């Protein structure tokens, strides 16, 4: 990814991240977070993670943010007015945030492997094809021969061949959370039966 795009999308991600925190209206916060996630998805695409970038837009910017907006509008939450921010908390937040970034910056400044650019670690589809040998699946083989990265196919291979059990656990987790949400949001019936 050209450097200018990296800076553009990183700026979009971080600036709209700031907007989430400073805006008084929760709807503005939610929409800013959606834009921030789209910027993050663009960064993922720049890292050749096309599947993850797409899923980020679909799940986060799509489903999760719609859920947030739906709840905000369902509960009819108004913008906070006339409230002074807790200045001790603001001070603490700035100190903690700056310290965290400084800490990571210090570690990163001595991290030699982190000084590589993507051009120095290029993706080599031909080399990958040679390493896979005859075991490569036909679809993956075709793409690698053409010199393109079959990102989604490799992701599917990884998920279903190496993390099949984990995938089933995640499916169970989603089922449990769905049932949990239904139980949590069920209105307690007070008119008949009394206390449960």
């Amino acid at each position, binding site marked *: 990814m050209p450097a200018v795009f990296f800076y553009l999308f990183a700026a979009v991600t*971080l600036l709209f991240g700031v907007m989430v*925190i400073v805006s008084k209206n929760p709807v503005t916060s939610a929409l800013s*977070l959606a834009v921030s996630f789209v910027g993050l998805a663009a960064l993922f695409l720049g890292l050749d993670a096309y599947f993850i970038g797409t899923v980020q837009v679909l799940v986060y910017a799509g489903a999760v943010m719609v859920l947030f907006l739906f709840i905000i509008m369902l509960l009819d939450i108004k913008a906070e007015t006339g409230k002074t921010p807790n200045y001790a908390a603001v001070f603490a937040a700035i100190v903690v945030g700056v310290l965290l970034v400084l800490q990571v910056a210090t570690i990163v400044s001595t991290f030699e492997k982190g000084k590589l650019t993507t051009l120095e670690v290029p993706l080599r589809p031909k080399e990958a094809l040679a390493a896979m040998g005859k075991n490569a699946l036909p679809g993956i083989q075709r793409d690698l021969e053409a010199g393109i990265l079959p990102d989604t196919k490799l*992701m599917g291979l990884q998920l279903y061949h190496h993390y099949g059990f984990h995938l089933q656990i995640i499916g169970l987790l989603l089922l449990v959370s769905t049932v949990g949400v239904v139980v*949590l949001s069920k209105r307690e019936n007070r008119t008949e039966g009394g206390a449960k």
Partner: protein
Amino acid sequence: MITLNHYLIVSSALFALGLAGIIVRRNILVIYMCLEMMLSAANLALVAFSRFRVTDGLPDYSAQALVFFTITVAAAEVAVGLAIIVALYRSKQSVDVESVTKMQG
């Protein structure tokens, strides 16, 4: 040129923003949004490491599988969290965390 360190700095900045938001804000919905931001920041670090650890000419897809699972868990967490917020709003008529002080010592 853009190095791995650039991505790690952006990731840590996004994480710090989320953490600052959780400390500052009193609206529990915005706190949840900041939690999501922190999870995404961790995802960015993982995807960056995946791209820069090239083995046999391909990025490390184990990291991306972990990102996939993280996104799924985050979606499940948001669903349950928002149901809790709705239940909280029903009993307190407010989404301010300062209205929930019953367990304060």
